[in-house]
């Protein structure tokens, strides 16, 4: 078996890509925790191997026509077996490359960001764990394997969000993330069970084949699709399970860049596109997905407009863009959603990493404070962040422009104009909140003119210049690379489309041609968003108060996340804890414990009663003996 493995370079590359980070994780956790540089070295070496393997596979199989699948029998029981292996087709190769690239860049960046942190080795171990899980998730051949690694990715997320576990809010955030995504995963698993019971297996290729529509009734497909989408709702922070993602910003910024913008939360969208043909079989489900995506996009955009925390803006933006991706996919365009996933990974990671530089420098998350302390003096991060924000808003010629247009095209092709309108509104809001942040940092007001007091964030230590130059450049190079990708990637639309769709023939609508007005409308709205932001924040002498902030009820609504968290808290307290937990506690205490106590008491009491027989008096014993003897004799002689 080893020899056959050695002969196939594709298989070697796939195995290396998936498994070297796991080896790194084990090595670091078991052996090398005390040696920080060695740990970081091992982790980065592993991810470099994975990146090299991923690029090798991408290049080698650029013209892949049919998916390559390697599957071995993992758990066997008679005729039933659970396979484990790899599936290499355009989508998985693309995802593999994206994940490997961003992981590599983030791990290099972390050398500078996390320097001096006491949990340095642990951080790199968890990064490797995450890389392993995400990479294997990307090339899973069956939904079950995908689910297993889905959960592993959730675990890595929990570990990394709560990385600074001594901080209560961080550990709470980790817990919240895990529990909320778990809720979605329950639905996911139920959906998988429905498919398994009715269809017989969970192989992705089989689920995407037309055989599904023939063998399963449309009701079953719809139910399964809705349940499986629950996993997407949880993992990709769609409405209503979206409040964990802003709280997940308690983790270190590179973690936010990697997990909660580019890769892990994209796993939901990835899964959607992975079984896109399966979902397409049910039009009702797709319509519901479209609605959920739209609501998510709109809600989170509003939340981003009023927050002061630099990472929170990008967190809400991530949720919003994920909703946008879901909209694109649900509207029927496979390519649009995947393309936006790719470009979003690039510029969102860039945005987070740039924010990380500011946070590392000024030790505060508050954008007003950063601006006031001279944030615009850090040239490379500032420029990269502007580029990325422009890409996010969909400005030509950056990558975001092309991917957003693809999605707008898909929405325009949909028969209901409501979704297109929502998409365009979303574009406007996106541009507004992104450039609000940019202008706040670019043109800060002096201390006396500010209305709001500084609250939140850490105590502002004056960032006296840069930290020593080596660390700064370790953090700066990934920024530059990502910015370059952001600029270039948009022009790769055509070859990517050919790559993704050519070999497969996956049904997708790309009605770009005859909706040119959509293009101009989108760009126009983005520019007007930027203009509004400039008027409110960037202009000299502006009050730096957004139009939303002037309406306090609206501002409070958005700041409190549309009171979703409050709703969940109330639900937990009154329904779950108040009713169910109460009921179960009472049952436990009164009935179960009471029963056992009662049993004990009865035993003791009966013992006490029976002890009267043991009077210790000889003659009573003798009497009992003789009476018994007589009765036995009676029985035997006269029975």
């Amino acid at each position, binding site marked *: 078996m080893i020899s056959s493995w050695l002969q196939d370079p594709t298989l070697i590359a796939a195995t290396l890509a998936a498994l070297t980070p796991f080896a790194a994780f084990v090595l670091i956790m078991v052996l090398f925790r005390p040696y920080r540089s060695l740990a970081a070295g091992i982790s980065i070496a592993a991810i470099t191997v994975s990146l090299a393997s991923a690029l090798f596979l991408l290049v080698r199989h650029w013209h892949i026509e049919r998916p390559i699948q390697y599957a071995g029998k993992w758990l066997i029981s008679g005729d039933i077996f659970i396979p484990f292996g790899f599936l290499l087709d355009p989508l998985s190769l693309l995802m593999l490359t994206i994940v490997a690239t961003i992981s590599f860049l983030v791990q290099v960046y972390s050398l500078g960001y996390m320097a001096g942190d006491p949990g340095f080795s642990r951080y790199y171990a968890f990064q490797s764990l995450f890389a392993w899980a995400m990479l294997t998730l990307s090339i899973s051949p069956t939904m079950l394997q995908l689910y297993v690694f889905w959960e592993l990715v959730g675990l890595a997320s929990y570990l990394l969000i709560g990385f600074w576990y001594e901080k209560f809010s961080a550990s709470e955030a980790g817990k919240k993330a895990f529990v909320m995504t778990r809720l979605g995963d329950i639905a996911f698993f139920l959906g998988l069970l429905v498919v398994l019971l009715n269809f017989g297996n969970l192989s992705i290729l089989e689920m995407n084949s037309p055989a599904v529509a023939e063998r399963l009734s449309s009701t079953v497909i719809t139910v399964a699709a809705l349940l499986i989408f629950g996993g997407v709702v949880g993992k990709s922070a769609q409405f209503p399970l979206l409040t964990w993602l802003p709280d997940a910003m308690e983790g270190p910024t590179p973690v936010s860049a990697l997990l909660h913008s580019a890769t892990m939360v994209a796993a939901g969208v990835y899964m959607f596109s992975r079984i896109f043909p399966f979902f397409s079989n049910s039009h009702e489900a797709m319509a519901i997905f479209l609605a959920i995506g739209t609501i998510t996009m709109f809600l989170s955009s509003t939340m981003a407009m009023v927050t002061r925390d630099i990472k929170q803006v990008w967190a809400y933006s991530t949720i919003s863009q994920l909703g946008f991706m879901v909209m694109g996919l649900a509207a029927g365009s496979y390519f649009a959603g995947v393309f936006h996933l790719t470009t979003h990974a690039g510029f969102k990671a860039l945005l987070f990493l740039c924010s990380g530089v500011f946070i590392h420098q000024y030790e505060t998350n508050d954008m007003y404070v950063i601006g006031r302390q001279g944030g615009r003096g850090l040239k490379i991060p500032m420029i990269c962040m502007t580029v990325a924000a422009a890409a996010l808003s969909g400005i030509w010629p950056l990558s975001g422009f092309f991917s957003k247009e693809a999605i707008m095209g898909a929405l325009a092709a949909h028969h209901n104009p409501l979704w297109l309108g929502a998409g365009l509104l979303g574009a406007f809001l996106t541009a507004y909140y992104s450039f609000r942040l940019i202008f706040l940092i670019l043109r800060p007001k002096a201390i006396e003119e500010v209305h709001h007091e500084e609250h939140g964030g850490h105590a502002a230590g004056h960032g006296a210049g840069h930290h020593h130059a080596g660390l700064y450049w370790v953090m700066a190079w990934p920024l530059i690379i990502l910015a370059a990708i952001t600029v270039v990637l948009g022009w790769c639309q055509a070859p990517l489309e050919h790559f993704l769709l050519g070999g497969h023939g996956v049904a997708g609508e790309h009605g770009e041609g005859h909706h040119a007005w959509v293009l101009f409308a989108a760009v126009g709205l983005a520019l007007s968003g930027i203009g509004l932001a400039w008027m409110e924040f960037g202009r000299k002498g502006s009050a730096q108060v957004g139009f939303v902030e002037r309406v306090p009820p609206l501002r409070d609504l958005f700041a409190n996340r549309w009171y979703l968290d409050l709703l969940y808290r109330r639900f937990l307290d009154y329904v779950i804890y108040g009713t169910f937990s109460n009921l179960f506690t009472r049952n436990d205490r009164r009935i179960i414990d009471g029963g056992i106590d009662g049993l004990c008491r009865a035993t003791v009491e009966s013992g006490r009663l029976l002890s009267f027989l043991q009077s210790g008096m000889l*003659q009573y014993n003798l*009497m009992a003996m003789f009476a018994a*003897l*007589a009765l036995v004799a009676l029985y035997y*002689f006269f029975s």
Partner: protein
Amino acid sequence: MNPLQNLVPPENLAQIGFAAVVTVTFMGALIAVLPRNILYNVLGLALSLVGVAGLFLYLGSPFIALMEILIYVGAICISIVFAIMLSRPLHLSLPKRRLPKVGLALGVGLLVFVILGAIIAKTPWRRAPVRSADWSTATLGNYLLTRYDLVFELISLVLLVAILGAIIISGYARRRPS
């Protein structure tokens, strides 16, 4: 010849004698269990045992009757009297009688008697087909020393051990040094 022969036929004499013996036995037994004074009980026991000796006589074994009087009355009852004398329980307060206990004892006693009686009445006692007619004491002695020799020796051993045990338990050896 019996002077009373004309007045009382021999069988009737035997019957009267039997009735007398049984009466003595049971009176002795009742005296042995009912009164509270221990000496009365011992004397009642002796009386009862004399009656039982008479019963043995009627059962055709004068030797055993004699042995009964010799051993039971002469040795055992006397030793009980000795024990009573030596331990002087008469000086101590006599325990009061409790009615529930008496009632329970009566009940169990009656139960046992009734069941035994039922068994006695219901069982078809079969006599052995061939019965020897040799009732002599010489044969008894002969059997004792030949066929049942082992049991005889064992009985002696038991008696020896019992005496030794009695000495040890009563602590005779321990009382010596003080």
